[in-house]
């Protein structure tokens, strides 16, 4: 088959990949989020959803809650300043997906709909509650990140693993699911 002639684009990508692998971070970001945030500013979208994210309506106080606390850990690890952006959940997801925010926290539970809207981390914890019909519903909690920022995704995932969010501070033992 005349394969060599039909895959010029792939050859170009492969060559670029080999040139790239030498020095750079891998996987890398499309919009260089990791580079910009490190020792810079971390733009965090927050939507009130206790006990995960607790904000006041005016947005004057520092946000609190499981995920807000953890974002402070993230900023510390990257030596970054935090810029809080208060937004309703839907707008927050849109801003994050577009890359106007670096991370979105809103006590998000992974669903098919949310998975389509933004890139999600793996669930860092799972809660469960009894529905009125007696069934148990599991809720995997995730954070939202911009699409295509794969280096940034790995940075966040590695910290989620090394220093998981302190759910025990905010949740009663009965509410804490399996990690």
């Amino acid at each position, binding site marked *: *088959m005349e*394969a060599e002639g*039909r*895959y010029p*684009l*792939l050859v170009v*990508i*492969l060559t*670029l*990949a080999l040139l*790239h692998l030498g020095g*750079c971070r*891998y*996987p*890398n*970001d*499309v919009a*260089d989020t990791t580079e910009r945030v490190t020792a810079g500013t971390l733009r965090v979208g927050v939507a009130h959803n206790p006990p995960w994210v607790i904000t006041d309506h005016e947005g004057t106080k520092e946000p609190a809650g499981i995920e807000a606390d953890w974002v402070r850990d993230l900023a510390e690890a990257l030596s970054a300043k935090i810029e809080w952006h208060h937004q309703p959940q839907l707008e927050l997801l849109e801003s994050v997906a577009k890359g106007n925010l670096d991370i979105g926290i809103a006590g998000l539970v992974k669903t098919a709909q949310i998975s389509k809207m933004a*890139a*999600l*981390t*793996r669930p860092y914890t799972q809660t469960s509650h009894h529905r009125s019909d007696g069934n148990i519903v599991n809720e995997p909690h995730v954070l939202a*990140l911009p*699409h*295509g*920022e*794969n*280096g940034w*995704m*790995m940075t966040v*995932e*590695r910290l989620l*693993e090394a220093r998981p969010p302190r759910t025990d501070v905010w949740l009663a033992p009965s509410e804490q699911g399996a990690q």
Partner: protein
Amino acid sequence: MNIRRTYRIPENRQVVLNKLIKLQWVNFFFRLSIVAAIYFAMGNSQAMKAAWLEDILTLGPPLAFLIAMHIQKRPPDKSYPYGYHRVNVIAFLFTACALFALGLFLLVDSTTSLLEAKPTSIGAETFYGHTLWAGWVMIAALVYSAIPPFILGRMQEKLARHAHEKTVMADAKISKADWMTAVASVIGILGVGMGLWWADAAAALIIGLDVTRDGYTNIREAVGDLMDRRPHSSETGKPEELPALLEQQLMALDWVERASVRLREEGNVLSGEAFVEPACDKDLTSNIVQAQHLVENTDWRISEVVIMPVTDLTRASD
């Protein structure tokens, strides 16, 4: 009613055919394992999804071949006086249509995501306590998926050539496209890791073009067979020289003035008519019987050639 004689495949060809049947079983189960492997590593990747759908589709050809092989063994009967050989072509056409449809689907899907310009996100995965980029897991699965079709494709091609078995020949092409697809997907994922958001979709687009082209070629081939197109070599894709050879053989006979042969493919076998212009009519019936015997033993693929005496061949073949 006249029912065709049962075509008897030469023993050495039957041996090759049995090997092909075994090979296609192995092929089927390998492909099934690949479908499972890719499914668990699929994640969000466009090229990965493309590869997975293509892998599911590639389960069809070996199955179709095996079923057709089972049915075509039946001898001609009252309902099917010409025999069951064409069942091969039906399986082939069915596969070709599905392949073509998939190719179009991949083209539309990857073009849409290129126009949408939404970068692909590939996250983390934990393996035995190590957290690594899920792209590496996908690449590992893709490399695994490339090895069996690479090996099997070569074996298929070699054996199918011996047996004049077009379905497996085309399936060998699918195997080839299959491992190339996997390599393209690996490059797409490497591109995504470099921050080239379009690499994944671009790789899927190239795969789509490849599959569509394969589907188109196969449909043409299968439709050609159903339309009684003259036999084509499954190796070169060019018309066979066999009709001309038969004509020469017939004309070499004392009693034949001129001869003209037409053949068609019925799955793995050939059949057709030979029009002969006798030089003299003496012993015509026994001459024809002998000539038929001669023609049908020229090539193992020939199942039946009817010999028709005509007075003026120039008019008969017009």
